[in-house]
């Protein structure tokens, strides 16, 4: 919905300041940015690797020069083999980006730091023609891939210093223009790719706890977690459980205790048709701006099974009671221009700034889309994986994907037939997609007449085909 962000001219000394020609455009910009900042958000999918294995994790994102820094965080435990991080070169081979030879047999940070950064700008000439940064991780032992995203604001608008407007005062044109600049700052940061939520039917047969899905996010302070699931085959004894936790981003069950002693946010311990569970994250003592992970897993006991859990959707959204402190004013020709209304515009933007202290920030972080774990050879230990779809709330115009499958609508609010346990309903609309092998697939979602912005949809594997990853992008 980029076109809904209005363009506003720079104001110069002596210029007329109009209602619809200037002031209301600022309000519309704020409203647009607020909608993005408070819209449903999804996650970076973390991966756990059970042992020494090649091709343990893949991720990709469109490289953009504004965001040249790769942020990568992985925790590894290896004793004999080396771990490697590769990038895909335009010569059609993998080139090493980094490696770690740690052989302590204890948990350590890949590359020696929890927050590794790599300057991809220096490599950008080596990237393939489609401009995609594709990474591959070959594991030398156990590993958690916690974080992989691009950052940086090269050439982007700087945050303005808003004046305090005062009635009876004459602001300078430059001061007025800060209201314009602030909108552009937020716009540029709001334009980042969107990952969907991986879902499907999941289970494992071991008589123990196993995480099924780890979804990382940055907490913005006003959110609730929405988890939509259905379950079948759960032992009715009450001993089989499907749990949802929120943990620190770098939660490692081998070395970390659970947050708050292991607060269970959702427990599905009986068969259920599609149910949406909401969790007020503001009650979970999370720190605004810090990173966390939603962990969904199953606990089978010797006596009971947690059955099959269908993960329909996991998303972050505004708490029901969240209100906007500074709602932009709407001016009409002939209205006096009150300082309070200009200050409210500035305050509203400050609330949306990508600052850890702000609510609803718009972080300029471009997360890599993790590939689907196709099977256990991907290094996923334990559970049977049936993660077959990626759910999106349509926001950006272009869909990047790798693999083959289809884009389909949600019929009557339930997922498509093939993977639905209950509420059998076929998608009303679908379109088959396939990539070209070397380059990623790209589809202009505006070409799908049935798909409107704000609508949920799936990018889905179909029989015999596999969607490896998908992202919505704001630019082709």
């Amino acid at each position: 919905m980029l076109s809904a962000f209005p363009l506003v001219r720079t104001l110069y000394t002596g210029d007329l300041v109009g209602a619809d020609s200037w002031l209301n455009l600022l309000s519309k910009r704020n409203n647009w940015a607020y909608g993005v900042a408070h819209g449903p958000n999804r996650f970076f999918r973390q991966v756990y690797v059970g042992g020494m294995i090649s091709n343990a994790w893949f991720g990709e994102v469109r490289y953009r020069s504004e965001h040249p820094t790769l942020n990568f965080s992985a925790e590894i435990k290896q004793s004999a083999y080396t771990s490697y991080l590769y990038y895909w070169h335009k010569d059609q081979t993998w080139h090493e980006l980094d490696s770690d030879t740690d052989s302590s047999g204890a948990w350590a940070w890949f590359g020696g730091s929890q927050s590794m950064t790599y300057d991809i700008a220096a490599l950008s000439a080596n990237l393939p023609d489609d401009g995609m940064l594709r990474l591959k991780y070959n594991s030398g032992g156990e590993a958690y891939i916690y974080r992989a995203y691009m950052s940086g604001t090269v050439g982007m608008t700087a945050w303005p210093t808003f004046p305090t407007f005062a009635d009876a005062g004459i602001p300078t044109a430059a001061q007025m223009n800060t209201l314009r600049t602030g909108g552009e700052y937020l716009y540029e940061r709001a334009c980042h790719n969107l990952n969907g939520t991986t879902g499907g039917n999941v289970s494992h047969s071991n008589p123990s706890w196993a995480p099924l899905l780890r979804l990382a996010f940055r907490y913005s302070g006003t959110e609730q977690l929405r988890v939509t699931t259905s379950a079948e085959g759960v032992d009715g004894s009450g001993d089989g459980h499907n749990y949802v936790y929120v943990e620190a981003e770098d939660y490692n069950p081998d070395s970390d205790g659970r947050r708050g002693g292991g607060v269970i946010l959702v427990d599905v311990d009986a068969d259920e048709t599609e149910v949406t569970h909401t969790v007020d994250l503001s009650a979970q003592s999370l720190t605004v701006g810090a990173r966390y992970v939603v962990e969904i897993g199953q606990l089978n006991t010797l006596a009971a099974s947690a059955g099959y859990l269908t993960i329909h959707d996991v998303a972050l959204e505004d708490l029901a009671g969240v209100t906007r402190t500074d709602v932009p004013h709407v001016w009409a020709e002939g209205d006096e221009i009150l300082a309070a209304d200009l200050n409210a515009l500035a305050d509203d933007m400050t609330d949306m700034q990508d600052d850890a202290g702000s609510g609803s920030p718009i972080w300029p972080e471009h997360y890599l889309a993790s590939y689907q774990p196709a099977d256990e050879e991907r290094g996923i230990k334990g559970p049977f994986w049936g993660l077959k779809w990626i759910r999106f709330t349509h926001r950006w115009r272009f869909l990047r994907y790798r693999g083959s499958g289809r884009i389909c609508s949600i019929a009557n609010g339930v997922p498509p037939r093939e993977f639905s346990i209950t509420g059998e309903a076929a998608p009303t609309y679908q379109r088959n997609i396939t990539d070209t092998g070397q380059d990623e697939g790209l589809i202009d979602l505006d070409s799908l007449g049935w798909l409107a912005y704000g609508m949920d949809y799936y990018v889905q594997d179909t029989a015999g085909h596999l969607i490896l990853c998908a992202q919505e992008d704001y630019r082709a």
Partner: protein
Amino acid sequence: MRADPGNIATNATAGAATPYLKVEIQWNGVNWIDEGSVSGATYVLGASGQSQIMDPAVGFTSLGTALIGKATVRLRNNTGRYSTSRAGSQAATLGLWGKAIRISAGYAGESVVVFTGRVLDVQEAEATEEVTLTCHDPGSDPRRQKISSYVYGVAAYPAKASHDWIDYVRSQLGIASPSLEHGLMVIPYAWLDDDDGLSEMRTAASSEGGILFFDADGLLTFWNAGHWADVAAADAITVASFAELAPRRDWANTYNIIGCQYAPRKERGIEKVYSLKRTLPIGPGETHSDVLNFQWPLASFNYYDMTVCTAGGADMSASITLDNATPTAGQRWAIEFTNSHAYQTAYVTQFDVFGSALDGRQAETYLTTNLGTDQDRRYDVPRNAYVQTEEQAIVLTDMLADRLATPRLVATATNMRANPLWQLGDIITVTAALTGMASDFILTGITWQWSDAYVMTAQLVKADLYPHSGYFRAETAAGVLGAGGNVAFY
């Protein structure tokens, strides 16, 4: 009003002072040569001219439709000075067609410039030993030029406010020293594809209700729609000033529904925008020039695919070079293929251009209604390619809804003793007891004649274009915030 060099304002009303006229021609393209004033020199016999920022034949809705200013000069040609066919004459030596010409007028030896332009026609008369020059203001020049550009509004070429785009186009046309007010709105996407530059600048101006014309000095001038907000009267006239004053209400241009169609643009994904439809043979050592016209303008260029071979199909790509490796404009590529091979003809069998194209979305119409209890009278703003957003349409229609709500008072003051200080757009206070005139008017047209006397006719439109006064202007005394401060424009 122009600055008075002395006593022109006084002499324009006094009636006794001798009119004065000066005609200058830039024979060598650099220096102005005075062809001699009537009061003392040889050649100038008379002149007339007209300039307008509203088409009187259309009425008030045409405010902003500036016609090309014209002037006619009658010169004595007893020496054959202006005859290009007369061997050795000034015109034969230096030429006359297309020469810059400047006309100044005034009283008692004082003058100000009332027209600047070019000589576009020369009509000679053998028996009467006269010549008549027909001259146009500089607006005639860009009408003959065709220009192309990249697409502005995408990442590499940021979107422009209307005056920025006008400034860009005029720079492409080689028009120097413009006088441009800041535009009110931003034009999201703009590009040129062998377009008429003057027409594009006018269209861009009218996309926000602005006006574009060349003033008496030949300066390209852009006024935004707020040009007359809170502007005080520059001069005043009474019954003593004119032979006749003819006020009337412009009923024909009264509307209570204003419609404006806007056509959003969007960038598409990467696709093929051009494909060579024929085989292009290029002989050994030869260069072939071509202009590739794309199906859609390119918001961004990505790459091209080219296949070059001999008639037998052998690859010749190593022998072909291009002078421009990327498109030279948004919708075209002026390109030269050079075949460096010594004896093989190269056949370009494929040349496909890929990029992100820009195309239009379905057009929409924004309506502002001002109905009251009256019957519908709808005015549709002429379609304008630069009106691409609802925001632009809102500003335009809201403004027009106020301006066209009631029959506007227009007036013509004829046979006035000419005041060369008056300029298009000046606010003139008109007082006339019989017709009850006591209002400020905008001077939208001037027709002047200098022969036995120096007279003019003024076309006037009542100046109450805006519902309020005291509009907020940034960083000025009229930029006071708060209750009792300045108010928002449209």
